[in-house]
């Protein structure tokens, strides 16, 4: 996994609540057996005026000019600013894959759906839960200022805007450690293989039918 330490990145606002993972990456793209290549299809149905299919070349597809991702001022964005319950619905990890593959590294929202939230961390993305007031303020500042960019520092757990407005965010020490160092979680877990085996032996003794 790619490590995340700090970032100065342009912000792209998606101003609607309950953005679901079907919207982030529609089902037809889930037929891929790869982990990469989803970026061009991120928000496919909102972003393009035609119907997207897997492996389609997106360079000349007609774009929805009203959609934030297509607006010149948000090109090169690395921070996705969103509303409540971002990433609800399906557990598809293709959603964070598409977001990461597009070029985003940080998502800021008042709340996230649980499975999506867990999935983002596995892919070097940093999801930040901010208060509704702080998110409102970021939306206002972002819409008012072309080229609006935020500083995000994982070590100090802070977000700072160009106006000097700043707030801190929470993250569990375990996730912070993995993200800062780009650690492979499976490798970390396997360091405890002995404990897993010991647990398994106790579990088998208590519920032998689970091992029949």
């Amino acid at each position, binding site marked *: 996994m790619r490590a995340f330490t700090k970032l100065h990145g342009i912000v792209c606002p998606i101003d*609607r*609540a*309950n953005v*679901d993972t*079907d*919207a982030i990456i*529609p*089902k*037809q793209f*889930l*037929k*891929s*057996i*790869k*982990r990469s290549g989803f970026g061009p299809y991120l928000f496919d*149905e909102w972003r393009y005026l035609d*119907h997207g299919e*897997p*492996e389609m070349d997106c360079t000349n597809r007609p774009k929805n000019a009203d959609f934030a991702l297509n607006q010149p001022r948000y090109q090169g964005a690395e921070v996705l600013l969103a*509303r*409540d*319950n971002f990433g*609800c*619905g*399906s*557990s*598809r*990890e293709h959603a*964070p894959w598409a977001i990461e593959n597009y070029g985003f590294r940080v998502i800021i929202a008042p*709340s*996230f*759906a*649980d*499975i999506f939230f*867990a*999935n983002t961390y*596995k*892919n070097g993305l940093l999801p930040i839960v901010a208060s509704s007031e702080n998110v409102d303020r970021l939306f206002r500042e972002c819409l008012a200022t072309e080229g609006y960019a935020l500083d995000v520092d994982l070590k100090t757990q802070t977000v700072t805007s160009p106006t000097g407005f700043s707030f801190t965010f929470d993250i*569990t*020490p*375990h996730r912070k450690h993995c993200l800062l160092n780009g650690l492979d*979680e*499976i490798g970390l*877990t*396997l360091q*405890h*293989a002995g*404990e*897993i085996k010991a*647990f*398994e032996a106790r*579990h088998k003794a*208590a*519920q*032998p*039918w*689970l*091992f*029949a």
Partner: protein
Amino acid sequence: MAGKTLYDKLWDSHVVRQEEDGTCLLYIDRHLVHEVTSPQAFEGLRLAGRKPWRNTTIVAVPDHNTPTNNWDRGIEDPISKQQVDTLDANIKEFGAQVYFPFKHANQGIIHVIAPENGATLPGMTVVCGDSHTATHGAFGALAHGIGTSEVEHVMATQTLVQKKSKAMQIKVNGQLGSGVTAKDMALAIIGRIGTAGGTGYCVEFAGTAVEGLSMEGRMTLCNLAIEGGARAGIVAVDEKTIAYLEGRPFAPKGTDWDKAVAYWKTLKSDADAKFDAVIEIDAAAIQPQVTWGTSPEQVTAIGGKVPNPANEADPIKRAGIERALQYMGLKADTPMSEIAIDKVFIGSCTNSRIEDLRAAAAVAKGKKVAANIKLALVVPGSGIVKRQAEAEGLDKVFTAAGFEWREPGCSMCLAMNADRLSPGERCASTSNRNFEGRQGPGGRTHLVSPAMAAAAAIAGHFVDVRQA
């Protein structure tokens, strides 16, 4: 000290180790695998030179991409076929306790086949790269969806890195009225708490109305926990749970069965257990539900109307309603019963079990699908459900009424196969998500119970099944 919730008991019995910040390694007993969210996980194992920790915990089936008709032609979409072939190859290489490949007599939707084969048992931790894994909580199991990285993690280590959620109890008191089902109960709950109401919680469904549900009904209820934001929904074990499991192929046998039953009977919340949140709902007040928008929380009773955004004070919610009405092609204040439909879908991991098909067939019996309905699909959840339904003559009831009777699979719930809506088409669907484009780009989904879907097919528009 307060007693334990069922969630506490399930959690505590699976903790391998705990970090100082509360992060735990949780042991996983059952890993359900399908073709869409597993290929990258198997590839990850291969690249790292890892083997599955315990492949006998794996139950696998292709379900999302498989066609529901013309099976003799195989899978015609080459990209879908590649994904299903990849699952075949991966199971061959890495192993599983059981695999039902495409066209196998017992193939079907993963969340239907695991319970009906006794592969989901009380007290288990159950995961799958699929958010509707919550279904299995109906058995007093801790079951939830995971992403593909976690699928790989479970395969490689038999554990998940997890932090414990909070515990919510949703108590549905009294009894459901006639014609009102577990689906209506679930949608009414989501309408009440919202699609993020359960975020951060494991929800235990309790109360006399939940106790009164069959196992199929409890699966429908837990299946929809995720649409209320909760990764896991659970129901305590009772005699119905045990009776359902007895004799199923992978259920324990002999003295193991007796030992298991004795343990399973302890799988309920203690009388003095403390929940972080408790919601009480009166079952008798629940009416048959129909969604009107593009989120499962955008739901009302069949006697209700499409809401008017002008009545919503919150600007973000108001914009959400306006956007939903535009997408759905609906006018504010339209009575739900005046909304005409184009297609009907009875199926999905929410509502494709035998009881669902019986309920729909009871409404359709001796009637005809309305002339304005372009397609009315019935897709059983598995080969076993299909054969049972055929033995009861339900297929004949459906086909005589003008429904198509198909082969099992996820089908038009998410339209990864050929079963889908065309842009602008409106569907009465027994599935779980009414998101934009879910059943096909531009398609308009209204979530309902199987009986309500069948009634809508006959009437050509939504109708109160109690008066149909």
